[in-house]
């Protein structure tokens, strides 16, 4: 089981790294929310799946997989709510050629 856990966790770590780099480097709020909402969700799910595979089949693994389900539902929902609030509050959208504020 160990090689499966390591494989899943390394794949998830790559997604987490991509998500954090996107949060640092992308030009405006909507691009950053895009990076967080998708890559972070998949990365967390892969890492938690790897930890469940390391733990073996019992009640604790079931709870870890329940956490995976909760993250799968709530993380994109929270990002969507935040993006909707930002759009209604009039956060400016970055267009190609604008100056990048970091």
């Amino acid at each position, binding site marked *: 089981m160990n090689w499966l856990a390591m494989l899943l966790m390394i794949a998830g770590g790559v997604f987490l790294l991509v998500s954090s780099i996107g949060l640092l480097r992308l030009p405006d709020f909507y691009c950053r929310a895009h990076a967080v909402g998708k890559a972070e969700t998949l990365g967390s799910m892969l890492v938690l799946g790897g930890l469940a595979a390391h733990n073996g089949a019992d009640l604790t693994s079931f709870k870890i997989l329940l956490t995976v389900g909760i993250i799968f539902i709530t*993380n994109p929902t929270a990002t969507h709510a935040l993006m909707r609030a930002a759009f209604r509050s009039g956060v400016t959208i970055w267009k190609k050629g604008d100056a990048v504020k970091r």
Partner: protein
Amino acid sequence: MESFFIGFAVFVVLLFGASLYRIAAGPTIFDRTIGAGLIGTNAVLMLVLIGVMYNRVDMFVDLALTYALLNFIGVVALAKYFERRREDER
């Protein structure tokens, strides 16, 4: 396998730094909120990792579940709260 978990925990802690930079330097309040949400999601991972490292996953996974739900509620509440603010208050 133990050293792999410790290395992965250090990697996740380094990712906290990226979110903290975005919280400190974000141009709008929504950038800061999304950085805080990212820290919350990574903290769930850190809780389960700490549980695996100390051989107490059965205790720490309950904390992780609760923390995931509280993180979601906090981010949605902040989004609803900041939605009606006008531009000059940001």
